[in-house]
């Protein structure tokens, strides 16, 4: 095939075609990673800024006026509109730009061709387009920070009519227009990418790589791409209707509104329609974030426990079950919107069902550790940490899924604690695990271990330090998205808790400096990596350390076994790469 000759011919590439408009999946993966990291840094700084206001309401901080200027932080005191804007953009960046594009974009691009034994993605051009659309979306989203009336401020869910009416809040003007534009482009990027991943996994698996021999990381990325392909278009249609309502006088989401001294003419629409459309994406989105994280964790835990992942088929089954169920649970975000109580019962039922495959995953992780020979590499530390956060955050989901209990906890800090731990922290930890684990594959060098451990403990502990106490605030009825809690004597007891959480947030943010240093330092000066540093079975470690077009210098590898033959009895080494043929009488896989 063309790909094979490719490898030999193209040694002299221009800077632009190698580093910028590259069509090589490995380079695109790195581009996604670096862009995602940059966006995450912005999102993280934002969270520290608004946490300062929460811990010390109304106090003046030079750093606030340094970042936001006198307009949005007059005298160093955060403006309430800017507070909401920071929360909104923080959420948007973290959910979409870091944990959707950053996570899937990086690891789907890096791992799919390498782990299934393909020369590259099915379409290198579409892959490049996907990245550059993502980059464009990032630029537009960030540029909304600099418009006169401020960025979108109605929360990352941008519920109408608040987000549609500049009369309701300044951020719903130009800032919201840019938000919609950026998200439209983002969705296009995500769809192009997802389509490419699916086609590649279905069509380009090498000889012997049956679906049941795929590493779990690929299964997870596969189902993730399908979820994205089915749900993102719904968000796109939701924001297109928003454009109509804002610009062309339609009334999809608005009715009977009197604002700023005027009765608006919009009639017959419903903001609840938007909520249905948004959460039809919004809930699968949670699993678009979590499944790749779980896939990465599966790989890292199996490899470092030197054991097969426990219950491979059950793991695949639970990925599929979670993927399917994620489409019929969105209503649990809307228990208190006044929707039919019977519908609420249905959504409670389906939502709680998700706990079953999730429980299976957790138990299988724990059992994989059992009687293992565990190497605690930084990647492994992050993965074990992810199991802990997935558990801690997942369990509170059982409470929020219960419509009766959600009445009192809806939109309180309990929810903030829940999703930051189960989705935010878990996915971020898994993403770090992936970076530490596959860094040698990405850059041909090793990251520093000691800095890795320091980074892990600081991140992990401060992550819990920020989000765990929030459960208690939520149980006390403290609502989220409050500029300050000072207006209610009821919430006065939580002042020092807010300070504690802010201190942890600052420590956690500073810890990322260690990571950034380790990352960029190791790119250029880390020790050279051996071909298979973690003694892993999967195909990506059979490629040369130096990246080449087409991944394998000669013929494509042929796969003879599943990816989890760790510590198989009768073998000399405690790992057997997938390319090693089965011996006579040897059984493959889970038997």
């Amino acid at each position, binding site marked *: 095939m063309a790909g094979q000759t490719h490898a030999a011919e193209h040694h002299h590439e221009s800077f632009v075609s190698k580093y910028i408009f590259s069509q090589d999946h490995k380079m695109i993966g790195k581009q996604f990673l670096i862009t995602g990291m940059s966006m995450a840094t912005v999102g993280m700084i934002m969270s520290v800024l608004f946490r300062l206001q929460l811990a010390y309401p109304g106090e003046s901080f030079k750093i606030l006026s340094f970042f936001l200027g006198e307009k949005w932080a007059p005298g160093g005191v955060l403006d309430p509109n800017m507070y909401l804007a920071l929360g909104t953009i923080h959420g948007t960046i973290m959910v979409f730009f870091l944990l959707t594009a950053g996570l899937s974009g990086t690891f789907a691009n890096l791992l799919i061709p390498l782990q299934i034994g393909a020369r590259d993605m099915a379409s290198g051009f579409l892959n490049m387009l996907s990245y550059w659309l993502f980059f464009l979306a990032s630029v537009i989203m960030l540029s909304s920070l600099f418009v006169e009336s401020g960025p979108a401020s109605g929360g990352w869910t941008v519920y109408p*009519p*608040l987000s549609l009416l500049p009369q*309701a*809040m300044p951020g719903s003007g130009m800032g919201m227009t840019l938000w919609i534009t950026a998200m439209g482009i983002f969705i296009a990027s995500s769809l192009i990418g997802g389509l490419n991943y699916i086609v590649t996994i279905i069509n380009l698996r090498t000889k012997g790589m049956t679906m049941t021999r795929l590493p779990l990381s690929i299964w997870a990325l596969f189902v993730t791409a399908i979820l994205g392909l089915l749900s993102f278009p719904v968000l796109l249609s939701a924001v297109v209707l928003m454009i109509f309502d804002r610009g062309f006088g339609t009334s999809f989401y*608005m009715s*009977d*509104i*009197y*604002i700023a001294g005027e*009765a608006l003419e919009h009639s*017959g*629409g*419903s903001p*609840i329609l938007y909520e249905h459309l948004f959460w039809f994406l919004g809930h699968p989105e949670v699993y678009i974030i979590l499944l790749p994280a779980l896939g990465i964790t599966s790989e890292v835990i199996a490899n470092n*426990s*030197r*054991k*097969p992942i426990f219950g491979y088929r059950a793991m695949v089954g639970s990925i599929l079950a979670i993927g399917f169920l994620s489409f019929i649970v969105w209503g649990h975000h809307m228990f*208190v*919107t*006044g929707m039919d109580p019977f519908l609420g*019962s249905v959504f*409670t*039922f389906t939502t*709680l069902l998700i*706990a*079953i495959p999730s429980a299976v995953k957790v138990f299988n992780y*724990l*059992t994989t550790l059992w009687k*293992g020979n*565990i*190497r*605690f*590499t930084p990647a492994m*530390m992050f993965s074990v940490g992810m199991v802990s956060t997935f*558990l801690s955050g997942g*369990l509170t989901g*059982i*409470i929020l899924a219960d419509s*009766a*209990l959600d009445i*009192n906890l*809806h939109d309180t800090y309990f929810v903030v604690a829940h999703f930051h731990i189960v989705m935010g922290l878990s996915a971020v930890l898994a993403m770090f695990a992936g970076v530490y684990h596959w860094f040698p594959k990405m850059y041909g060098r*090793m990251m*520093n*271990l000691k800095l890795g451990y320091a980074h892990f403990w600081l991140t992990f502990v401060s992550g*819990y330090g920020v989000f765990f106490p929030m459960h*208690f605030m939520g149980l*006390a*009825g403290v*609502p989220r*998205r409050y500029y300050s809690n000072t*207006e209610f004597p009821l919430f006065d*007891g939580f002042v020092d*808790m807010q300070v504690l959480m802010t201190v942890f947030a600052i420590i956690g943010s500073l810890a990322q400096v260690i990571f950034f240093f380790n990352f960029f330092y190791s790119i250029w000066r*880390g020790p050279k*990596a051996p071909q298979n540093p973690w003694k892993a079975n999967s195909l990506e470690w059979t490629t040369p350390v130096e990246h080449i077009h087409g991944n394998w210098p000669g013929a494509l590898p042929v796969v003879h076994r599943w990816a989890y033959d760790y510590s*198989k009895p009768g073998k000399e080494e*405690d790992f057997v790469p997938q390319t090693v043929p089965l011996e006579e009488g040897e059984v493959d896989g*889970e038997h």
Partner: protein
Amino acid sequence: MIILTIIAVLAAVAGVVQLVRVFELTWKLKGDNQTSVDFAENRTRGRLWGLFVLAYFGFFIYIAQKYSPFMLPEAASEHGAVIDTVLNFNFLIIIAVFVITHLILAYFTGKYYWRPGKRAEFVTHNNKLELLWTTVPAIVLAVIIIYGLTAWNDITSEPSEDAIRIELYSKQFDWTARYAGSDNQLGEANFNFIGGINALGLVTKESIETRIAELEEEIAGLEAEVAEAPEGGLKEEEASEKLDLRKRQLSKIYVHQYKYEQNAAPYNAGLDDKLVKVEFHIPVGKEVFFQFRSQDVIHSAYMPHFRAQMNTVPGEVTSFKFTPTITTADMKLKTGNPDFNYILLCNKVCGAAHYNMQMDIIVESEADYNKWLGEQKTFAAVNTTTSDLATISQ
């Protein structure tokens, strides 16, 4: 200042470079191989998980006991007590699972760390075990679902006929409560009638007339403006656009006028409605049926002490019902806090002052409640007084 900043940045960069050199030297001296596993270090790292899990539990207990005085007091409504019971039941289960799984995590990581020459056991799956941890969660969840949904069905059931009807009306950034009055029937309201003292847009004979008069006057003014403005200019365009808008609005008012003439009852029901701000009262032991409307954006009426919450959605009427069980005075005694007050707050982000959109709720005996309600003026009375005042000032 700029020079100083540049110097500081340069110094910082130089510092980092030096630090890196020191690092590199120490790594080289140690001959640190970044891939191999050091046995002793690995054991420590495994055991650190045990320490972490202990610290995590400790943190949990510390936070829980430190902030227990600030948790919500016992539920002050009938269904609230049920919600609390279900909540406690669920917490019991999830905390047990949380503790057990974390102990397992700590045990496995502390025990099965890498040792030289050791081999992990090749276990791929175990159908019995997997069946067990699929069915056990399924059974526990079935219990949780049935228990939760029983409560939910009860909470969301139809209100009784004699429930007290109160409308909670939200706008940026305050609440208004409207009592249904002696007929226990909330009068018709429409956003086209909002303005002046008619903050909720109640539609009555008088408000129809007032609104028609207002709009006709404005239309006359605008017509004059259009006539005077230079032809084809921006001013003319603006004025005629506004004129068209007012005319369309007037036609909507006429629709209400027509409906009123057909059947006045739902409109007249509003005459005895009572509007209150800042605080509203409800009687203990009587079912209260709340209806919610919103003027501008989505808000959410959250009454944490009663375990009650419902979004208020522009263009829609939502509802929630509950029966308060503890009076404000009793709750003051129970909590030992003489300043205690039940509150209604906004729990759906609605704009800059979202964080301060509140109303006090007073729960009192039925007699006190009736006395208080008797003192409040009906919509008709408020209307008359103001129009009387208007006549006097003219």
